[in-house]
């Protein structure tokens, strides 16, 4: 339905404009720079449009941990599996999560064995299912970054308004700024500039980022998802690096403001509080996730269901952790494309539509 896209949005896929910006990137670069795009959606767009192959060889794009499905800890997935198996539960989740391997099985296998696991497009749909099934317990797997957190918070608020006592969430939200700190303070860090994730910033703004940019002397550009947005974000970051300037610029001004969406931020503060969270393949990052505030504890699935003690077991071959931290590329994994494929994934980055391994597989970057 391309003819229905208005010109002011279609312009962001205009090949002539993308080439103009790429030419300016080529003119600007004088030395090697390593940038990280945080968001897995951007990793896929970069691969899909082949932008990585059109950039000067000096610019290396490293793929960040911005794939919520990929970083959800094995403990949380095993907890989800345990809850989903219970007889009176309808377990609801975004579709990506169903094939992510837990220690022994995944949500798909639970569904195949007769468990009620349903894919929803929105957390609000899970609330609707709860209203329609008063004799069942409906649990929503509340994953996602700051982009998804307000929708998750809204589902809790809506369930409270409707007086539903059969709805709860498994809180699994993760936050970008603590992950930036973790990456930049790592002794292995190679990142010199960030493309900040546009839709996280649509909610949060980018007021949290200047102190991080300053502390680690790392410039950033808030970047959107269309090809023109991506090359603009890269150009702005490279210009700052070449000029020796550290700042946070906005290359996605049609959607993002410095303050962000204050109503959404207030909603998040009302429902959630920052808690320490374990990131799959990376480890625990302090205050990097959202747990429910005291006033909303009754909507916490971990309080409602006994998930017992969980013994987790990761694949021994998978290098997902190093891929998520930008230390290794997917094609450097011995299992890539052989033992590990989207049909038989060993790690979450091969499953998710945002995972770096799936992007490399799908767009044919078999060997870098």
């Amino acid at each position: 339905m391309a003819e229905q896209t208005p010109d002011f949005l279609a312009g962001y896929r205009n090949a002539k404009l993308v080439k103009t910006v790429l030419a300016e990137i080529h003119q600007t670069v004088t030395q090697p720079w390593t940038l990280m795009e945080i968001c897995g959606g951007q990793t896929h767009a970069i691969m899909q449009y082949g932008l990585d192959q059109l950039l000067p060889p000096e610019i290396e794009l490293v793929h960040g941990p911005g794939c919520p499905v990929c970083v959800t800890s094995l403990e949380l997935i095993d907890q989800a599996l345990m809850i989903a198996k219970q007889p009176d539960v309808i377990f609801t989740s975004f579709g990506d999560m169903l094939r992510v391997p837990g220690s022994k099985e995944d949500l798909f296998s639970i569904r195949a064995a007769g468990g009620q696991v349903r894919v929803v497009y929105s957390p609000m749909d899970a609330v609707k299912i709860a209203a329609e099934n008063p004799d069942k317990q409906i649990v929503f797997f509340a994953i996602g970054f700051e982009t998804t957190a307000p929708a998750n918070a809204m589902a809790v608020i809506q369930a409270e308004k409707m007086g539903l006592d059969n709805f709860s969430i498994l809180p699994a939200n993760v936050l970008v700024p603590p992950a930036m700190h973790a990456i930049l303070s790592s002794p292995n860090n190679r990142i010199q500039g960030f493309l900040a994730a546009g839709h996280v910033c649509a909610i949060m703004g980018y007021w949290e980022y200047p102190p991080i940019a300053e502390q680690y002397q790392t410039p950033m550009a808030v970047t959107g998802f269309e090809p023109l947005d991506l090359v603009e974000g890269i150009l702005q970051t490279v210009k700052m690096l070449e000029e020796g300037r550290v700042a946070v610029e906005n290359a996605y001004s049609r959607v993002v403001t410095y303050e962000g969406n204050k109503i959404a931020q207030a909603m998040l503060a009302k429902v959630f509080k920052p808690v320490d969270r374990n990131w799959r393949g990376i480890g625990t990052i302090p205050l990097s996730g959202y747990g429910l505030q005291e006033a909303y504890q009754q909507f916490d699935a971990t309080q409602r269901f006994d998930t017992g003690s969980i013994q987790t077991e990761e694949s021994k071959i998978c290098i997902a952790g190093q891929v998520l931290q930008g230390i290794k590329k997917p094609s450097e994994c011995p299992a890539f494309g052989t033992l590990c494929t989207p049909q038989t994934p060993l790690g979450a980055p091969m499953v998710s539509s945002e995972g770096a391994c799936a992007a490399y597989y799908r767009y044919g970057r078999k060997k870098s």
Partner: protein
Amino acid sequence: MCLGIPGKIESVYEDHGTKMAKIDFGGVLREACIEVIPEAKPGDWTIVHAGFALNLLSEEEARETLDILEQMSELAELEDQEHSG
């Protein structure tokens, strides 16, 4: 996951006191929650993620960015012509 889809607001309504809208995504109408953009009205553009509007989309900002890049592109073409001429 953090993908957002631009759509045009067709109509606004309430469901259990929550602000909702019917939104046109290139000819397909879907419902989304607009609780965090209460000022939204029919005709406005928004970015929707997981059935939830994240923010309003500024048509003016979108056009301004494109205009600057169009000018850059024309300038580059002129320079090319000068170099080859």
